[in-house]
């Protein structure tokens, strides 16, 4: 949150008795509008059906920063609760009196979506609107040398697009022009991204340390291992889209960005306009799972609107644009070392992480970061991805072990130079870090992964999710057979957020690894909408399974054929338990990602006796580990 103060326009009671709430957090398909409406209805003592959540806009919404990091309930919900209580002139309700918060209110947006009504930014139309497609080089950061003239072609340096009254004409023209455009060679993509990262460290810093030389000296056995996480795509089903309209010297933009105020700042910077002349409205897109192409397409549309003679522009990125240009979740290398004492307790731990930053969001620095900024005739130099400090962190999110190790050190070897555009993907570095930490815990556990974890974990809430996952999955009566295995993993998201333990069961007999069952137990404090939490947990488990089994972005990936994701026949059943308590509510959207990948990797080891330390867990990487 940029500004914690309560703005008066956050809650408004209308003449007809309905309540409008203006929130800075935006709907990304995670159900946040419904949960925030529940909070407002609860505090104001009105029926949920009377609450309307306004689409966020820089024109009237409070600046609540970016909708990310599983903070919408923690921060946005808290601010809204306070504003509602203030409006009623009384103290906030104690949670023991809640009647709407804590219930499974059905999602407010689903009836319209299921009926096929206009629900997304992609469905919006403005009067006289032109359809646009963008021309981009086959290789990142190449320069446009030449492109033949064509009706509707607009260009500013290497930034080029085509405008047409009919969408199919824009598509056809772009196809033709892409085939004929000549580009300079861009920089080549590194062959081995993991070796490249370790060779390009800009700065090594201690992320966190607790030195205990006496404990360290008790170590009698030392182990080490290295883990690899590839580039992973957000891969939204609806490619990114934006509308923009230049009216005289002011600009209006419609975007499915996670941060309308930051995007406004970036657009104003790149278009060299005063910020107050730019309005950014939020409209929902397809699920984004972090920072996808939303902001880039919005800057593209804004630049096109400057060349469209005052007509509004709708720019739809193609599926190929999205795969080629979205900011991927960055590749990571994690090296771990541990020392065990004579009783098999971990006395010393070291975590080394090599990665680009995982936060390359617009509007955060004086330098722009979006793609088009560097393509203009008067280009900007794009700023690097820079991560916030712990506990949120970026690449180093969840790099600090969640166990009670007496001596530990976490090093972040930050790589500033980026071979491709990368930024925040659901859970950021936590996916790679927890994969490494929880795989390594199994490697050290000497055959008792549950007991070994509990022996190093004092936090009662952490222990509770592990113990419940063990009980619910019937861990101790799992019947092992050839090619079948089970595994467990645990993490507290960001070390300060939701607690999560996952048990995975797999079959590894055939050509491909199959996940046959997932059990997830979480503690998110008081759930505002318990079924909404379950939905997020189930979805997170299935998406993490897809990342784990299949996903790796490589240069040249432009379609679902090159980037397969989990299909209906492959999705494992997921059993979810949300522990009941009344601790402050914690975000639920991202906490399962790390535990799921590690539980599957551990189950694979249980099934085949092979430790696979490079994602994804494809037949190829499994075979490589067997033959190593």
């Amino acid at each position, binding site marked *: 949150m940029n500004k914690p103060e309560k703005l008066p326009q956050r809650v408004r009671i209308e003449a007809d008795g309905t309540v409008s709430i203006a929130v800075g957090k935006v709907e990304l398909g995670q159900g946040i509008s419904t949960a925030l409406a529940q909070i407002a209805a609860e505090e104001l003592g009105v029926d949920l059906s009377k609450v309307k959540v306004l689409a966020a806009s820089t024109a009237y919404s409070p600046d609540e920063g970016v909708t990310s990091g599983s903070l919408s309930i923690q921060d946005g919900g808290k601010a809204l609760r306070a504003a509602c209580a203030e409006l009623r002139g009384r103290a906030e309700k104690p949670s023991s009196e809640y009647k709407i918060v804590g219930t*499974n209110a059905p999602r407010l947006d*689903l009836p319209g979506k299921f009926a096929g009504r206009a629900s997304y930014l992609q469905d919006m139309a403005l009067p006289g609107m032109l359809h646009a497609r963008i021309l981009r080089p086959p290789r990142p950061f190449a320069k446009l040398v030449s492109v033949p003239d064509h009706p509707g072609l607009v260009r500013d340096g290497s930034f080029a697009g085509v405008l047409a009254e009919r969408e199919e004409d824009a598509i056809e023209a772009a196809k033709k022009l892409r085939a004929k455009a000549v580009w300079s060679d861009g920089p080549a993509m590194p062959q081995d991204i993991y070796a490249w990262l370790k060779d390009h460290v800009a700065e090594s810093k201690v992320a966190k340390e607790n030195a205990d030389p006496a404990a360290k000296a008790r170590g009698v056995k030392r182990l080490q291992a290295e883990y690899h996480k590839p580039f992973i795509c957000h891969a939204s089903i609806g490619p990114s889209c934006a509308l923009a309209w230049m009216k005289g010297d002011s600009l209006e933009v419609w975007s499915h960005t996670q941060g309308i105020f930051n995007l406004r700042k970036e657009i104003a910077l790149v278009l060299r306009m005063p910020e107050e002349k730019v309005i950014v409205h939020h409209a929902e897109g397809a699920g984004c799972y972090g920072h996808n192409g939303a902001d880039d397409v919005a800057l593209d549309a804004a630049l096109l609107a400057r060349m469209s003679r005052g007509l509004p522009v709708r720019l739809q990125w193609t599926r190929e644009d999205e795969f080629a240009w979205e900011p991927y979740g960055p590749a990571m290398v994690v090296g771990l070392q541990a020392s065990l004492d004579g009783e098999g307790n971990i006395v010393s731990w070291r975590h080394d992480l090599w990665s680009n930053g995982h936060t390359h969001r617009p509007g955060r620095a004086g330098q722009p970061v979006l793609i088009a900024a560097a393509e203009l005739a008067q280009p900007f130099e794009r700023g690097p991805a820079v991560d916030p400090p712990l506990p949120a962190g970026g690449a180093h999110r969840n790099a600090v072990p969640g166990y009670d190790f007496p001596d530990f050190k976490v090093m972040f070897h930050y790589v500033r130079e980026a071979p491709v555009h990368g930024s925040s993907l659901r859970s950021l570095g936590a996916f790679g870090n927890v994969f490494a930490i929880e795989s390594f815990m199994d490697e050290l556990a000497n055959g008792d992964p549950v007991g070994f974890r509990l022996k190093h974990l004092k936090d009662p809430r952490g222990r509770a999710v592990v113990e419940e996952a063990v009980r619910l999955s019937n861990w101790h009566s799992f019947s092992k057979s050839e090619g079948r295995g089970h595994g467990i993993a645990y993490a507290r998201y960001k070390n300060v957020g939701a607690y999560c333990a996952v048990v995975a069961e797999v079959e590894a007999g055939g050509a491909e690894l199959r996940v046959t069952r997932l059990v997830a137990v979480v503690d998110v404090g008081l759930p505002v909408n318990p*079924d909404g939490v379950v939905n*997020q947990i189930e979805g997170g488990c299935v998406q993490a399974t897809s990342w784990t089994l299949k996903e790796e972005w490589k240069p040249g990936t432009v379609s*679902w054929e090159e980037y397969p994701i989990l299909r209906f026949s492959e999705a494992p*059943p997921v059993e979810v338990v949300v522990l009941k308590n009344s601790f402050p509510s914690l975000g639920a959207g991202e906490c399962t990602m790390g535990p799921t990948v590690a539980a599957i990797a551990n189950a694979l080891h249980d099934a085949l006796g092979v430790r696979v330390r490079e994602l994804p867990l494809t037949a190829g990487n499994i075979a490589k580990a067997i033959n190593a």
Partner: protein
Amino acid sequence: MKFTVNGKTVEVKAEENTPLLYVLRNDLGLVGTRFGCGGGQCGACFVMIDGRAMASCDLPMSFVMNKSITTVEGLEAKHPVQKALLAEQAAQCGYCMSGIIISATALLARNASPSEKEVKEALDKNLCRCGSHNRVVRAVMRAAREQA
């Protein structure tokens, strides 16, 4: 160019090779059929043609001339599939759901009581990124029971 959409005959001015999707969305305002990939790979743009779920994003208008098309908007109000999806709260962002509703409706029309495996196979052409798969399968099974 004449064809039938949701029981009504319509005439549009479009080229023969224009994909049906853009005519539905931009000429007829039927935006429930969503754009996903443009290559028939993800299922977001499925419509029903003669009882079959088909991608509309790469289907030329010449193919649909004189054919009868059903989009998600053309399903009867409170269709059992949509009702069951609501009962199961079977979506997160919902972007893929129009296509899934079409696939499920086509399945139930040819197989009134499918097994879970048959439901999953019928939906394998539809990609869902939010991970709502289990809820969707439960909803389709529920729809089958409730329409019986």
